[in-house]
């Protein structure tokens, strides 16, 4: 229920970090009783904007107005005093303390008002009843499920009776039932006149709940639309932009007609870090020389799936076969020795040794074994030569082979990882978001390398959220939703828009 009165206005917010303009003059407003969604892919600037709204970050330009008055930036307490309430995605509950202890802490230190324990308990009861939440107050937070923890978060925020509620990726880790419950609670609150800002990237969730949607891309506002006026495909296109058209021409790598099956995955089930049944029973196969695209919204388990195939993450069940051999129980090293290569989604955390030189990173080879050594002694000169030739071949732009990998740009770091993995002609290449955060030229270069790898006979699996990218690279696509394989298409037979709809659960075009 909207009353039309403006509650909050974000006006021209900009914020820069080393090398990147995270928020560029972002403007939108929130009305009383409205549920307003901020939609954007990772890297669109949502996290930074959230940090500014919460008062954890100082914007470089722009203001936030509450009831027409400017809110003091960089001061979380001020924000809370003015009626803002935040439900964060992570890091906001102490796992080893009980629910009630967390709530007491947050009440005492968060808003500075020392509510007595009885008063807190009273408000908890009231809020729980109003929204139909049942919670054991004496249980330690670490014992609660993700959904229950979020209920605690919600109650924690609602104790302060905020007029504006900001939720960061609330549905990201919830099951379908938990999401429905959450929407119900939010609708309740909106009905009472609370203005709600939802930040996220799941199309179908957003369309189900929001009144208005503001789409962010690369730090800028693309458009603010009413949810009634738009469908999933259109939203998807706004989020992803015309990158689909921009990337290298569509030359999907097709396998030779008689190509053998390189990689086979049978009924693989994998646990995520926070969800025990993230990937359920997935089976697919990839032929030599083929590029298989894996489409799906972030959090559906694609990254975990690849990690399990590589041996980084244990599988709960199922088998992985390489050229017919069962490699399910092998260590990472053994799998690499057999010809598996992995390009991780988080290049800083998993992909590179940033303090080490380019040459040393390349020397680690794809097997952990330096490509130029004998009986444990490194041949520094050959490492140097090899590094130089790889830098040339893959177009890695760096001052020299001796510079630390940390000094390279994102694009060059990704090329470094590719060089290390592809240099020894792997049988299977597993890539997770290979062009995340890269500019156009680097993206094209990465795509070219993957195509070449396939041309040399490797089976390539690419997980990406960029539908255009998948269509440009892959000859076949599988769709994963909520951990299950829900569709398989040949690339030539579907458009990005149709794919977007498939991902959105088939919401009417």
């Amino acid at each position, binding site marked *: 229920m909207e009353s039309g009165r403006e509650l909050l206005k974000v006006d021209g917010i900009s914020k820069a970090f080393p090398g990147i303009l995270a928020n560029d003059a972002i403007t939108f407003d929130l009305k009383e009783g409205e549920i307003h969604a901020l939609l954007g892919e990772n890297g669109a600037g949502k996290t930074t904007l959230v940090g500014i709204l919460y008062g954890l970050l100082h914007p470089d330009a722009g203001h936030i107005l509450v009831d027409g008055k400017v809110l003091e930036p960089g001061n979380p*307490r001020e924000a809370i005093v003015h009626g803002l309430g935040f439900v964060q995605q992570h*890091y*906001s*509950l102490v*796992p080893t*303390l009980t629910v009630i202890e967390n709530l007491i*802490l947050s009440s*005492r230190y*968060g*808003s500075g008002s020392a509510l007595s324990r009885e008063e807190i308990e009273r408000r908890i009861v009231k809020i729980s009843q109003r929204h139909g939440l049942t919670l054991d107050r004496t249980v330690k937070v670490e014992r609660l499920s993700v959904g229950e923890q979020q209920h605690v978060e919600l109650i924690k925020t609602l104790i302060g009776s905020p007029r504006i509620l900001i939720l960061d990726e609330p549905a990201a880790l919830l099951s379908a039932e938990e999401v429905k419950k959450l929407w119900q609670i939010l609708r309740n609150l909106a009905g009472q006149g609370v203005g709600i800002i939802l930040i996220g990237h799941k199309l179908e969730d957003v369309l189900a709940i929001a009144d208005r949607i503001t789409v962010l891309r690369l730090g800028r506002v693309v458009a603010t639309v009413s949810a009634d006026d738009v469908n999933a495909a259109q939203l998807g296109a706004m989020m992803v932009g015309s990158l689909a058209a921009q990337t290298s021409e569509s030359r999907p790598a097709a396998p030779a007609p008689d190509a053998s099956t390189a990689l086979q995955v049978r009924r693989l089930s994998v646990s995520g870090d926070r969800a025990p049944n993230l990937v359920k029973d997935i089976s697919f196969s990839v032929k030599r020389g083929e590029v298989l695209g894996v489409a799906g919204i972030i959090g559906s388990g694609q990254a975990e799936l690849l990690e399990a195939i590589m041996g980084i993450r244990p599988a709960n069940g199922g088998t992985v076969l390489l050229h017919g051999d069962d490699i399910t129980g092998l260590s990472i090293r053994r799998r690499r020795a057999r010809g598996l290569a992995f390009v991780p989604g988080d290049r800083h955390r998993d992909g590179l040794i940033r303090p080490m030189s380019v040459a040393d990173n390349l020397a680690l080879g794809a097997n952990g074994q330096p490509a130029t050594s004998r009986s444990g002694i490194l041949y520094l000169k050959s490492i140097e030569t090899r590094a130089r030739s790889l830098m040339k071949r893959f177009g890695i732009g760096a001052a020299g082979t001796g510079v630390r990998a940390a000094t390279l740009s994102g694009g060059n770091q990704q090329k470094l990882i590719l060089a290390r993995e592809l240099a020894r002609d792997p049988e299977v290449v597993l890539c997770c978001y290979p062009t995340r955060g890269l500019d156009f030229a680097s993206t094209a270069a990465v795509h070219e390398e993957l195509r070449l790898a396939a041309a040399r006979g490797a089976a390539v699996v690419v997980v990406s959220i960029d539908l255009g990218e998948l269509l440009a690279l892959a000859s076949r696509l599988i769709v994963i939703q909520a951990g299950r394989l829900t569709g398989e298409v040949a690339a030539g037979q579907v458009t990005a828009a149709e794919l977007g709809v498939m991902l959105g659960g088939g919401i009417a075009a």
Partner: protein
Amino acid sequence: MDISAAILLLAATVAFAAPLIFAALGELISEKTGVINIELDGMMLAGAFCGVWAALDSGSLTIGFIGAALGGVLVALAHGLLCFVFRAEQVVSGVVLNILVLGLTTFGIGPIFGADLGRAAPTLQPISLPYLSDLPIVGRALFSQTPTVYLAFLLVPAAWWLINRTTFGLALQAVGEAPAAGLSMGIKVRRLRWFALIACGALAGIGGSQLTLAGLGTFTQNVTAGRGFIALAAVIFGGWRPFGTLLAVLLFTLVEAIQVRAQALGIHLPYQFLVMAPYVVTILALAVFVGRSRPPRALGTND
């Protein structure tokens, strides 16, 4: 073993335990907020030194104890400066401060106490609690101790209450377990860590002074002889809980008391195995009970 030997053993255990209880409780509070003090022994040593110094100069035991606390606090401040301001690894700072404090206190014996050779600071005398000390067996063992021993034992439930029953204690736990969550709740993580660290210094300093002011009243080189490390082990073995720590300390000091009286008790195990027992037991506890008794998640991190 006859009754009188048992009483002596019990009395010795309780008396030996006091310095460790102070230091271990201090370390417990500090580790709850995520700060580890390898230099705990140094804090105790500084306390022992400053305690005697202050008591000798002023002639008053009270001033002596205040001086002891200040000595420990000085070491704590240095640790905080190196770790919080200069972002050094807590372990490194701890090892270095140990070396420094041992050197400074040994060096200081000459200049500070040289002129007073032969003079001792006033020392604590045992006080027998009325009625309680008349109880059979336990009376003489437990209730005829120096007043600081009683204080040490009283501090344990006090620490328990502070950590588990006050909002402040909850905040301390939050800082050590999930500092990011604490920050988002508005807890001033840095400030609490400083508080816990300084409290640790004061307590460890007082604990150290137990060895001098409740003993002979003089400071000798390295009077702590590594007790700080036993206190560290006790916190770990006690599962980072106040009563657990108390039990660990009592167990370790019982072993020490047995070791000192081994011959009288007719024990023929080489005493070194008793001396190493606390350490072995701590490692075993850690290895076996991994997961069940877990350190605060943010232990050792400076941010």
